[in-house]
């Protein structure tokens, strides 16, 4: 009996969760929007590569990668799409119970980080970033989302390996 109630609840709630996802997915189909998605399949395989590494620092990095679910980045130079992205980002933050991690301004970029609490201290289950500003003289808006079991102390190392706009801002997360 109990089980069936949970099941019904799960089915009822499923669209709500998938809704939050599609909020950003629709951008991927737009012209003027660049998207990058890396899935858990990739992370599992990547983690295999240097599995036999003795370097403890490398090992920690592998741990981080192994526990990632996905990384999604969308970016645009189109200001009106950018404004829409910001609106969706804000409403996602409000509805998805994300907490502000940090925000800063440098050069002419405005960067905000939000996170969802994770399994233990210093770990988060989702990290989202919104960056707005100018890059190479062009307006740019970037939304980045990382999900999984993320060690905040390690995430800055991702910045080097992710070659997408806004990735370098990850370095400042600590």
């Amino acid at each position, binding site marked *: 009996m109990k089980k069936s109630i949970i099941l019904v609840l799960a089915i009822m709630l499923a669209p709500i969760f998938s809704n939050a996802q599609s909020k950003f997915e629709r951008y991927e189909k737009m012209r003027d929007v660049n998207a990058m*998605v*890396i899935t858990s399949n990739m992370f599992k395989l990547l983690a295999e590569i240097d599995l036999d590494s003795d370097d403890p620092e490398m090992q920690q990095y592998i741990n981080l990668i192994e526990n990632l679910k996905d990384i999604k980045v969308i970016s645009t130079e189109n200001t009106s799409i950018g404004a829409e992205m910001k609106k969706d980002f804000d409403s996602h933050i409000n509805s998805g119970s994300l907490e502000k991690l940090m925000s800063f301004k440098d050069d002419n970029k405005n960067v905000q980080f939000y996170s969802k609490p994770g399994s233990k201290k210093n770990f988060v289950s989702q990290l989202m970033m919104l960056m707005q500003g100018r890059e190479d003289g062009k307006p740019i808006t970037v939304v980045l989302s990382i999900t999984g079991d993320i060690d905040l102390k390690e995430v800055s190392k991702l910045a080097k390996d992710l070659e997408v706009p806004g990735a370098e801002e990850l370095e400042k997360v600590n």
Partner: protein
Amino acid sequence: MKKKINIIGILVLILGLASCTSEPSLQSYYVDHQDNKNFMVLDVPASLIVGDNSQLPAKDQETLKSVKKAVVLALPLNGENEEFYKEERVTIEQILENEKYSLLMRMGSSKSGVRISYLGDEDSIDEIVIYGNDEEKGFAVARVLGDDMNIGAILKLAKSIGNGDVNVNVNSLEPLMDMLGEKNDSLEMKINKQRQIKNGDSLK
């Protein structure tokens, strides 16, 4: 007579494939389109891409051997086939959306982009599918076929290729690189060259 049997054989094969899976697969897409004049087909045996690597550790040699060949199907835009390209692009992207192709990563925009996925279990991969699209040049799908390919090991090898440890016949890769970029006539020449090499290869 022999030809007739061949045709019947192919028909049976197609029917067999069609009956066991109702959803379109890349395999059937290849079969359906390889004779279409808008498409280019490139069959690249691994031996053509990879040169002599006897100095590599045995483990790496084994990994290289697990890759059998790459089959590339490309639709280059030639100024007349834009409508056709648009339709086929939708079809091929729908096929790749199928969840049996586990997505590794994709990037780019609707104008141009790349998508890499695989078929099989994560530690014994039968096929790696690389799809690239550019609205000005056309699209290409490469199926990298092999037995129990360990993608982790392949990625590691890819790293050593970057370091120059693995002997790669760069010349043989050129037609692949040019596939979408070059004019059609030079491409055809290259493909013919490929075929000759391939025939030579099978004569061995």
